[in-house]
């Protein structure tokens, strides 16, 4: 147990130094700035420009979370309960927006309406020219559509997983006395209500923290104001003040989230897996709606970007001009994924140890660090570590600070994947090792890890992809002279030729898709090999 506490102490120490303390420091500094300035907090918040920012942020979050949850429930139901051909392909397609960085997705989406593209051409025949479409997409509409395009797929997948926690016999019992629609309304949705509300809050918070997409469509939101004050006007105090409403909103939603998770645990039931066959007569219609959604919001924008006039020579030239950024991105993503997997494993081992008294706090740390806006984390880290002492300077001027930010922000993914797998392992595996005289570390290395290696690979890959595309925190803390590919695209997008930005976006998508597809192929081959 001593080792457990030592490991836990390291985790807590890390969270304090690279998360909680910087955030607390940021809040204290913001409040101090308010007290020192002549402006009263309420007066500042009630300024029209601020109210507009808050209104835009809240409206966007509300629209995106509402639409994403509603449509996500619809598609989630199809993925869970309707017998479909190619269901696996649908699910894999829905994963694409998760791994493509949001900013790159915005570029794909916007380019889809250019007159030389397929959809843009069709719309211009119908009288909707490129300019008209651009003016429609400007601001709230474009931001909301793109964010929904990102969140609906992942919501659909999460909802289908959430619904699969309902025992199939519970649904069968309802099917003998009720229509499928009523079963959804009275059994499935109420059973999953805590999970669904929780998804709503998470999307709300992630949208609230969104910087890149509203910036792309020129919608003024709080994170954009924080960045503008910080990076453009070097007005740190206004930047801090602007981040305060975001901080307060995030904190409120985080508390709600924690309460909801506790409530949903009460409904945990033994899951009996079985074939679901709801909405039998409408399954063709449902499959078609899912296909149209995936085609229009995933394949069409990404495919369109690839089909733009990007010659091989041009791409080779782009690669040679961006070698440093590509290398920086890959190196950071690799280190980030390695640290995240190890850190996630340590957290998962503590969380799944029945005797460890603080196991429930692991989830608390992970959820807090994930749903906390990355822009606040970036600002907090830079304020906290930009001090005049050798240790601070060391972190501040090296890419290590970016790595720690990744570790703080994304640890929920490896932690959840690995702890879910660890929970499924029979206890007897470790107990048999214990009886054979193997120590804890030996048992972990030789008995536990080989049994969860697929989850370790998945954790590594997912962490790699998230680190590779991160912008929100990195833009605040990247050291001078060090740039990643997403940051380069973000900073170049406004003032560079369209084809250069498109080319860089294609490059980043390839960097992401190549490892993702290779791992999928390897896993499929392994599965086939195991069957044989």
């Amino acid at each position, binding site marked *: 147990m001593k080792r457990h506490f030592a490991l836990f102490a390291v985790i807590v120490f890390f969270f304090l130094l690279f998360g909680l303390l910087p955030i607390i420091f940021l809040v204290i500094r913001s409040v101090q700035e308010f007290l020192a300035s002549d402006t009263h907090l309420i007066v500042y918040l009630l300024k029209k420009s601020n109210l507009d920012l808050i209104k835009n942020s809240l409206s966007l979050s509300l629209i995106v979370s509402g639409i994403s949850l509603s449509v996500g429930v619809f598609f989630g139901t199809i993925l869970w309960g309707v017998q479909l051909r190619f269901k696996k392909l649908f699910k894999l397609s829905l994963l694409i927006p998760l791994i493509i960085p949001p900013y790159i997705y915005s570029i794909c989406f916007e380019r889809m309406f250019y007159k030389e593209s397929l959809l843009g051409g069709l719309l211009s025949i119908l009288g909707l020219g490129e300019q008209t479409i651009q003016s429609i997409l400007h601001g709230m509409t474009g931001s909301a559509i793109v964010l929904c395009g990102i969140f609906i797929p992942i919501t659909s997948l999460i909802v289908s997983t959430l619904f699969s926690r309902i025992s199939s016999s519970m649904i069968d019992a309802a*099917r003998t006395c009720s229509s499928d629609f009523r079963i959804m309304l009275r059994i499935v949705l109420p059973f999953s209500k805590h999970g669904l509300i929780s998804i709503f809050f998470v999307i709300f918070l992630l949208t609230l923290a969104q910087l890149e997409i509203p910036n792309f469509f020129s919608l003024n939101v709080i994170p954009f104001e924080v960045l503008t004050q910080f990076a453009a006007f070097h007005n740190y105090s206004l930047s801090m003040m602007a981040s305060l409403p975001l901080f307060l909103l995030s904190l409120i939603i985080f508390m709600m989230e924690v309460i909801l998770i506790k409530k949903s645990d009460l409904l945990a039931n033994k899951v009996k897996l079985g074939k679901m066959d709801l909405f039998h007569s409408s399954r063709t219609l449902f499959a078609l709606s899912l296909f149209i959604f995936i085609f229009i919001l995933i394949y069409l924008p990404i495919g369109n970007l690839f089909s733009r006039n990007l010659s091989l020579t041009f791409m080779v030239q782009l690669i040679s001009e961006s070698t440093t950024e590509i290398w920086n991105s890959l190196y950071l993503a690799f280190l980030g994924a390695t640290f995240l997997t190890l850190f996630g494993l340590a957290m998962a081992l503590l969380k799944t140890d029945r005797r460890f008294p603080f196991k429930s706090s692991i989830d608390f740390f992970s959820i807090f660090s994930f749903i906390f806006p990355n822009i606040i984390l970036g600002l907090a880290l830079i304020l906290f570590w930009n001090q005049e002492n050798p240790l601070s300077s060391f972190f501040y001027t090296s890419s290590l600070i970016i790595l720690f930010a990744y570790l703080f922000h994304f640890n929920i993914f490896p932690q959840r994947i690995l702890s879910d797998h660890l929970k499924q392992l029979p206890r007897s595996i470790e107990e048999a090792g214990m009886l054979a005289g193997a120590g804890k570390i030996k048992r972990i290395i030789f008995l536990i890890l080989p049994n969860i290696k697929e989850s370790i690979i998945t954790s590594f890959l997912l962490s790699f992809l998230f680190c590779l595309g991160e912008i929100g925190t990195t833009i605040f803390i990247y050291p001078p002279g060090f740039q990643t590919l997403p940051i380069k695209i973000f900073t170049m997008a406004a003032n560079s030729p369209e084809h250069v930005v498109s080319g860089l976006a294609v490059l980043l998508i390839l960097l992401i898709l190549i490892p993702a597809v290779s791992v999928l192929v390897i896993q499929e081959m392994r599965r086939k090999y195991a069957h044989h």
Partner: protein
Amino acid sequence: MPIIELRHIHQSFGASKILNDISLTISRGGFTSILGPTGSGKTSLFRLIAGLDEIDSGEVYIDQRLATRDSQILLKPHKRNVGLVFQDIALWPHLSIYKNLEFPLKSLKYPKDKIVKRIHEMIDLMNLKGLDKRYPHQLSGGQQQLAGIARALVADPDIILMDEPLASLDYHLKKDLRKKIKRIHETSKKTFVYITHDQEEAFELSDEIIIIDEGRLIEKGKPEKLLTDPAQDFTRYYLNPPSHH
């Protein structure tokens, strides 16, 4: 007049054949057990009678109505007038016991006063008085199964299908519930179809037993007849394995 009739049922999942040319009838008001070893296709029969699964070919008649023909489910599960009881009980955990019983009645559009009356009848019948406001996780295993049976009976279905409802209970509880199920059958006069691999249960409860193995109907008959004078070697072996001699 049979209440359930299966004609030449074939069912497979992928490459594996689950049911192979099964034809049988189940008479109205009887207590029929479907007995067979694990993986013999008992639960598949249960599910296709309830209309929960499709079949490859064959016909299912429920109360003289063609309910399933080949891969088409013509009569949806909620139109078949059946109640289901499961081994894992499957009470809806987010609803109180009262609400669990209310759901089928509301779905079938019972009038309000009838709903209240019917739920109270069921609660009395199952000795669940005072527990109706509780949630499933607040009841013991035996009480939960009684609530599960009450839910299956509450909408007054013609057929009660039970899939190993006592398998997860302890010996004494099993004995008590068996008596209760027998009594409910005798008083309700409904058709009970009971899926089990437990011979003791099948012989104590049933007035007819259907034996299946590897997706095929082996034999059907009165319990005494199957025990003393089986027509098939499998039945003889299955009901009297060598270790019993």
